[in-house]
């Protein structure tokens, strides 16, 4: 059975077992996010913007980036509840629902049959939640891409299920919502075009044309004000050092396109091999100085093994379309590589792990299909000999490595919570002085201090040092 039409079938017993298996992880993540303090260094300025600039969320001339729905969500919740505390609690609910729904939708979509498929599916879940793109998007309150990730999966599920009259409207609406939260939502557009081009059952030309028109309309709207965009807007990693925007403009301003290409490539490589991070080759540096942390070894080996497997599988399934037409596997493979390119293109100004979030969803889908394909190889491979040993070694590296990374993601949220807690205690006095002339800022900070310094905020687990170093990475 192929992935086409999987979502349309009833939920399999194996899918239920996998959902039950992942329940402790999901519950622990939800609990951790529920109790994590909003950080002092992101939240207050953001809320101050919301309070001061109510009618400018949709104005594209104000900032280089455009996230009207993200700001509107805060504004809507704040005005709707009439209370900052209630609004932030509801915002936190969205922060939890987004990743939890992504994991559950993912299991629903894979809907495995048989224990080999179930094995591939549960490893694919670990891959999804272990990617840097997933982990970094859990950073409260920056849920812009985190909202887009389940929407991408939802769109893919619609496109691969039997065609319905409402598909075009649903796909265009979901994509526009994702784009409204962050430009990374544009990564859905190439996935839709690929689905239509490869004759996915739920993708008709009406959907593809509608979405392409909406995307070009959005791009035209955005580029009409591109004169206001700075050449570089945030700090960038380059090799082993960070370059601040002012220095980057001085150094690369005349011809920024090499730097743009470097940023795009960095984001794509981060999805594929977990290095570099924000354009910085931390792990390569640690290798050069013989100070590799165990988690770095786990991340790189598990990513390289998986990307190698996906590349091998893509090489098998994509070229076959000329002979046999598009298969569901070929469609997933092509969509992954194209969405990856799209995510890279959307991060030309600077690279961050979280900018690979949309591609991470397709990476996990591709991983599932590649693992299934490897499993079908086992049908013709006796459990002896060199070929079998290579196959087993690769699957073991992927399975163990990515499960460690899944646990690492959980632990990362606790380190983030601890870092946010420390931020409130140590940064508030300085900010009171620095922002003394901003009464709205000070008012919001004062209201939010109790949640930031609550004694019951999550703390990292007291693992033995060797486990802590295995689960990394540290919160920046």
């Amino acid at each position: 059975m192929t992935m086409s039409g999987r979502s349309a079938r009833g939920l399999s017993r194996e899918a239920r077992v996998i959902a039950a298996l992942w329940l402790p992880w999901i519950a622990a993540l939800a609990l951790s996010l529920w109790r994590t303090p909003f950080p002092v260094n992101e939240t207050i300025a953001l809320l101050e913007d919301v309070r001061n600039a109510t009618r400018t969320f949709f104005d594209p001339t104000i900032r280089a980036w455009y996230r009207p729905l993200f700001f509107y969500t805060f504004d809507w919740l704040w005005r709707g509840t009439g209370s900052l505390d209630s609004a932030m609690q509801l915002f936190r609910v969205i922060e939890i629902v987004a990743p939890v729904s992504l994991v559950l939708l993912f299991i629903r979509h894979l809907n495995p049959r048989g224990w080999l498929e179930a094995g591939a599916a549960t490893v694919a879940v670990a891959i999804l939640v272990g990617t840097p793109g997933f982990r970094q998007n859990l950073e409260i309150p920056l849920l812009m891409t985190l909202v887009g990730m389940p929407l991408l999966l939802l769109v893919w599920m619609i496109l691969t299920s039997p065609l319905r009259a409402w598909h075009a409207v649903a796909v265009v609406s979901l994509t526009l919502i994702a784009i409204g939260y962050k430009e990374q939502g544009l990564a859905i557009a190439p996935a839709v075009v690929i689905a239509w081009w490869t004759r996915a059952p739920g993708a008709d030309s009406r959907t593809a044309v509608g979405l392409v028109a909406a995307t070009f309309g959005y791009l035209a709207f955005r580029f009409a004000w591109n004169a206001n965009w700075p050449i570089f807007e945030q700090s960038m990693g380059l090799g082993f050092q960070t370059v601040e925007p002012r220095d980057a403009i001085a150094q690369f301003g005349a011809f920024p396109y090499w730097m743009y290409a470097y940023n795009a490539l960095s984001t794509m490589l981060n999805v594929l091999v977990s290095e570099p991070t924000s354009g910085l080759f931390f792990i390569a540096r640690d290798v050069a100085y013989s100070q590799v942390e165990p988690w770095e070894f786990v991340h790189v080996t598990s990513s390289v093994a998986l990307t190698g497997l996906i590349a091998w599988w893509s090489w098998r399934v994509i070229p076959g379309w000329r002979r046999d037409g598009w298969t569901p596997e070929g469609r997933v493979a092509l969509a992954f590589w194209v969405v990856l390119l799209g995510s890279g293109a959307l991060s030309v100004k600077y690279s961050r792990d979280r900018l690979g979030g949309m591609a991470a969803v397709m990476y996990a889908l591709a991983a599932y299909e590649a693992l299934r394909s490897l499993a079908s190889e086992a049908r013709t491979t006796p459990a002896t000999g060199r070929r079998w040993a290579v196959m087993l070694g690769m699957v073991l590296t992927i399975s163990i490595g990515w499960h460690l990374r899944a646990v690492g993601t959980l632990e990362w949220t606790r380190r983030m919570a601890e870092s946010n807690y420390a931020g409130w205690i140590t940064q508030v006095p300085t900010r009171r002085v620095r922002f003394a002339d901003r009464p709205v800022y000070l008012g919001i900070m004062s209201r939010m201090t109790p949640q930031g310094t609550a004694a019951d905020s999550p703390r990292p687990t007291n693992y033995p040092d060797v486990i802590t170093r295995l689960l990394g990475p540290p919160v920046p």
Partner: protein
Amino acid sequence: MIAHTPTQGSRRRLALVLVVPSVLTMFAVLGVEVWRLVSPAGAETGHRIYGTLGEAIVADDLRGVMDFLQRGQSPDALIPVHDPALTGGREILVPPILWAAAAGRQRMVLALLGAGVTFERAADKAAACLADQLAFPEIATSLRQIARLPAPSACPPAPSGPPLLPLGLPTHTQPDR
């Protein structure tokens, strides 16, 4: 008896390699979560118990310091401290902000400032000058920026001997609660 072909064996082993790490991981996650719930003091970091606020400050433990402050200890209340270099090994009573500055604990200084140190005593106001004297310029800068303490030019000459001794009170004085 069922005869298995070699490929059936390889499929089964492959399924096990995929499924077993997942099952083991989830049992481990479940176990850790139950441990965190039942025994947070053992399962989570930052549950160390200190005898005094001064000990938590020296340990640079934010959670430890906040534990004292959130349980009602005033950030102005004098605390007993002793250190071979800073007090000559004698136990004296000093304001927490002075102790944090003398120990070079920038985060603790900021935590105490956030908790509302009033700087009503001369000893509190001496914290910035003491930080200068002990070569903690970041702490001195923070104290001057946030609490508007005297500039370096207004600092008295550093006395000889352990720097905290002239600023503390002997311990037979009743410490503040």
